[in-house]
């Protein structure tokens, strides 16, 4: 009887302590889940803020202001001798023609000062636009053509709302007369915003309205090709050798440690290496995408080796045994079974390495790729820049228009990175097989 009494006394308290303990466990789990969710929410917010700021800064650069003018292509100005030689057409004063057309449209009169102010409304690159038009079709000489010419940076800024009309005229980039002219052109429907093709068709320029990414895009493309054709085959072959053929001894251990260390070497060190070896020792040209590609290949190689080794090691040994067991040679086991199963992992690692190389800036600084290159390079041995380098150069330029261009170039770089990542995901899904 006394036993039951004591049991009745202890039982509820034990149950109570168990309940308290349970409640505490649940609280801990809830708190942990909250921390995790909060961390993800914070990251998500950061990404949204980042993209919002880049896109809001960069999107105006995708549109460009043009002025439509009726330009009389006066033979006396372009080709007074009537030779129609390319050289003569090339050196003609097209700016004069464009400005004359503008003076007529604005009805400026003969006053030099007001003509100068009017001239500032057109981009300094309009001569190239007219020249290209004439060079493409010399029969236009003598006629009057209706052309859309690039407006000056300040006109562009005004139309995009970057110049405030309420600021006193003295501290405004456009004075009252110029504003009046612009309003006149707008009223006449002569000013319009189009997609900024210049961004993709021109190289470096000191004027934001004529600056483009073409040289950077070609340079980055050459470098990506170099990395793809150098680092990928060498990396994959090296990794397979290390994983499947190399004996396990202190030499291969040493190599393994070094490969892992190389993956952690700061990228600027590869730039120094490239400068010392490829440019100084081998005598390859400075600022050339081939050198950039070689440096980026060296930088990407360890990443590819590590990813490939991991992918190869993850192939189940039972599959290799099965193939060996029916008489496949080592090479057949690798080519028929190991590689196909490792392909998703290899591709993922490789593309992540390529994306890293695409966005890499520091090593390219060392080999002189920070360069003002106007003409697109025909071969990887000619000077070029790269996308991240172009972003860096535009970000350090003073003119207002370059801020938007920096944002636009960043958007394009990010789009390329996302596209490559998407390809990696697609390929992984495509080749993934279950076993």
């Amino acid at each position, binding site marked *: 009887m006394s036993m039951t009494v004591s049991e009745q006394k202890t039982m509820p308290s034990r149950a109570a302590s168990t309940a308290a303990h349970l409640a505490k466990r649940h609280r801990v789990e809830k708190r942990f889940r909250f921390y995790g969710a909060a961390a993800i929410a914070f990251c998500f917010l950061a990404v949204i803020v980042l993209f919002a700021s880049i896109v809001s800064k960069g999107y105006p650069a995708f549109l460009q202001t043009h002025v439509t003018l009726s330009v009389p292509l006066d033979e006396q100005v372009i080709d007074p001798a009537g030779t129609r030689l390319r050289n003569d057409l090339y050196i003609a004063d097209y700016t004069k023609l464009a400005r004359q057309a503008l003076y007529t449209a604005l009805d400026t009169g003969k006053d030099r000062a007001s003509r100068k102010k009017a001239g500032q409304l057109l981009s300094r690159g309009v001569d190239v636009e007219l020249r290209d038009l004439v060079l493409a079709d010399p029969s236009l000489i003598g006629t009057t053509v209706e052309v859309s010419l690039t407006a000056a940076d300040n006109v562009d800024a005004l139309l995009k709302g970057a110049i405030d009309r309420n600021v006193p005229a003295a501290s405004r980039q456009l004075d009252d007369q110029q504003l009046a002219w612009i309003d006149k052109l707008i009223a006449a429907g002569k000013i319009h915003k189009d997609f900024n093709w210049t961004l993709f068709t021109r190289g470096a320029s000191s004027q934001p309205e004529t600056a483009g990414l073409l040289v950077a895009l070609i340079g980055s493309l050459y470098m990506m090709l170099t990395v793809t054709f150098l680092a990928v085959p060498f990396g994959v072959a090296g990794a397979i050798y290390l994983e499947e053929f190399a*004996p*396990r001894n202190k030499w291969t251990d040493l190599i393994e440690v070094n490969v892992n260390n190389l993956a952690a070497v700061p990228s600027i060190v590869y730039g120094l290496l490239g400068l010392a070896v490829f440019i100084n020792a081998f005598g390859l040209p400075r600022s050339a995408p081939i050198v950039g590609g070689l440096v980026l290949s060296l930088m990407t190689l360890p990443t590819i080796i590590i990813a490939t080794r991991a992918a190869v090691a993850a192939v*189940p040994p*039972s*599959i290799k*045994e*099965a*193939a*060996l*067991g*029916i*008489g*496949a*040679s080592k090479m*057949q086991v690798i080519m*028929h*079974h190991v590689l196909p*199963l490792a392909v998703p992992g290899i591709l993922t690692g490789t593309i992540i390495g390529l994306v890293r190389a695409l966005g890499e800036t520091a090593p390219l600084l060392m080999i002189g790729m920070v360069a003002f290159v106007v003409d697109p390079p025909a071969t990887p041995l000619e000077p070029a820049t790269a996308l991240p380098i172009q972003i860096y150069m535009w970000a350090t330029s003073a003119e207002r228009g370059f801020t938007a261009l920096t944002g636009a170039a960043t958007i394009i770089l990010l789009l390329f990175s996302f596209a490559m990542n998407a390809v990696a995901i697609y390929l992984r899904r495509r080749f993934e*097989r*279950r*076993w």
Partner: protein
Amino acid sequence: MSEAFQTLVTPANPRILAERPVKMSARSVNVYYGEKHAIKNLSIDIPDRAVSAFIGPSGCGKSTFLRSINRMNDTIPSCRVSGDIVIDDKNVYDRDLDVVQLRAKVGMVFQKPNPFPKSIFENVAYGPRIHGIARTKSELEDIVVSSLRKAGLFEEVKDRLDHPGTGLSGGQQQRLCIARAIAVNPEVILMDEPCSALDPIATARIEELIDELRQNFCIIIVTHSMQQAARVSQLTAFFHLGTLVEFGDTDEMFTAPQEQRTQDYITGRFG
């Protein structure tokens, strides 16, 4: 001791050995994993067209010896083999022997079903293809179909030969692996606990299959189940601590073992 050992190799000449030609014989085989002496001075004669079962507690070396026969141990860097294993008067450890040819002649079925992540057809066709056995596509198809038939799988998969082999049930996968092994016309089939990952019904099917296959092949099966050894084999070899303790006709081994250790193991006193 050595004399006793000698008599143990062919104890009182098993009847089966007297009736059938010897397919594989091992003499003084020693296997080392680094410092570990896994097989100690083992000699044995395995007859053709019969099932020989290797039994013994875990770590006794039966799988090690099995894997020495088709040189699968070559893939383990620390493994060293001495002695002679002779199949049809050919020493498998001869320098001039081609391992690829050996493994085509000595097929293997593993503990866990391990079909390739390819179609059922490709699983079976892979071996004939790499050995260049089939000259035409229709020949290859014939080999695949007959191998699947011999493995008792054809009726179940004939409508879905292009489906992945990994989508089959465990027992079907193991029969697919057997079909894959016999597609290259082996003479010896090594089976390393082929039923340990299967349920009793699938096990029964594999055992039936083994019984049919012994008409044409020399089969060596490693098993943890003494009932299985008793059911499928004609000869049983009992391994303990890296030595072959006793080898004889299965029915005699399980009814009247000559060695005390065999008796103890079979009656469940250890192992």
